[in-house]
């Protein structure tokens, strides 16, 4: 772990109707330095333009996991390697 400022490369994953609406199941990208929390990342997704704007128009309907663990919108994404977006789960 280093404290100096580095670019933050993450894998973003999409499931269920978020996968269908975005047309993407997985992408690797470098996050802009201003995006620190899950809530900020959701706002950035909604600002990416088609088809992400429509898919992320209602962020309250979207759940987020950082490295395979559920998190709240206030969570920091600083240490995340894999970030997943999906609707509330419906298994069982």
């Amino acid at each position: 772990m280093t404290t100096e400022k580095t670019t933050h490369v993450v894998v973003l994953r999409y499931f269920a109707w978020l996968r269908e609406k975005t047309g993407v199941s997985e992408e690797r990208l470098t996050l802009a330095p201003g995006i620190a929390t899950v809530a900020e990342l959701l706002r950035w997704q909604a600002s990416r333009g088609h088809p992400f704007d429509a898919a992320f128009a209602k962020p309250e309907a979207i759940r987020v996991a950082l490295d395979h663990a559920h998190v709240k919108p206030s969570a920091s994404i600083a240490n995340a390697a894999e970030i997943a977006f999906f609707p509330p789960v419906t298994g069982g």
Partner: protein
Amino acid sequence: MSVRVETADFDISAEMARLTAGNTGIGAVASFVGKVRDHVEGAPLTSMTLEHYAGMTEAELERIEAEAQRRFNLSASLIVHRVGDLKPGDNIVLVIACASHRQAAFAGAEYLMDYLKTRAPFWKKEVLANGDARWVEAHESDDAAAMAWQTSEK
């Protein structure tokens, strides 16, 4: 203690025998099987597809199982969840909770299901007889059931 995600069906007798083998301290085995129903809100259902988040699913199910084990002092437990295409009458999920006495076994199995329903990253897409396909929406009653364990209502 184990969790499995697979496309194949399961055999509850075989799973139960494996889980209790060699442990005659187990006096109670509670289990639950969830199945695909033929109707959703009055509309005939043709098939269902289960998607999941490989890696997170197993991690989350193991967290749920560990917490159930701790809370109810389970002797053994199992979660098997199927993914892929399923038809009405097909099995979807199996949970088994083993304990010395029945209250702990029942509570363990209910806890596993309540948390699996609200935490494990599975999503169901239903295909109706009229051709419509739609993602199942989460039920508030499931959130309430899981929440009840936190506020000691259960």
